[in-house]
């Protein structure tokens, strides 16, 4: 079960993920990112502080957007990952391909710098 909330702050779209993302729920993450991109946001911050678990289905969603976001000059930054969740990204080296920061303010700062 996962709850996904979106809120806007200073021109950035913040997607908060609460709960667990697995093969049954990854579609919700996919839809939220698609909607944010469709709404034209250039800065998307993904709040993972409430994310308790992610499987490859969720990792795959982030992976599938890397090229599209690059083409559209949209900057997505994840923040607030718990250690065990970050570890899942790191096992495959995906952590190196995504923008990940510890805190929301660091994430915001990076998105601001990248989108200049």
């Amino acid at each position, binding site marked *: *079960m996962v709850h996904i909330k979106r809120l806007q702050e200073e021109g950035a779209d913040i997607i908060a993920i609460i709960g*667990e993302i*697995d*093969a*049954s729920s*990854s579609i919700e993450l*996919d839809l939220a990112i698609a909607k944010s991109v469709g709404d034209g946001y250039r800065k998307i911050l993904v709040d993972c502080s409430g994310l308790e*678990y992610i*499987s*490859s*289905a969720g*990792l*795959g*969603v982030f*992976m*599938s*957007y*890397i*090229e*599209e976001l690059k083409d559209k000059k949209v900057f997505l930054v994840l923040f607030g990952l718990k*250690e*065990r*969740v970050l*570890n*899942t990204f790191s*096992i*495959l*080296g*995906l952590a190196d*391909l995504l923008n990940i920061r510890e805190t929301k303010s660091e994430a915001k700062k990076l998105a601001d710098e990248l989108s200049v």
Partner: protein
Amino acid sequence: MSYQYNIGCSLNNLKGVREFIRNSLKGQGVSDLEMGAIVLALDEMCSNLMIHAHHCNPDHQISMNIHIAGHHQFVFEIIDDGSMFDINQYKEQELDSLVHEKRKGGLGIRLVKSIMDKVEYLREDGKNICRLTKTV
């Protein structure tokens, strides 16, 4: 000590699988990070089976056995009667090309192989047994 869990092939049951694994390994001195990795690998194996061998038919059953073989030594068995798919025979695509092709899949098997020490397949009494071993 051994534990068994029977699961109908619905992706909604994956949460229950993860809870079963966490409960079975509780008190075995497995760190939070190692627990997370083991749970992840078994979730990947179960979701793959449910999707590819059983087309998410909740009437199809798979079972999981967890055997604590020794200090920090675990044997996990996933048993089903669908078509067998040996992940050892599967050649994973490079991460770069998955990214380039905007793929969402292709990561699960890589995770399992990175996390588990050994993955073996056996056939007994008309059933497929996938045996995964891990020492932490």
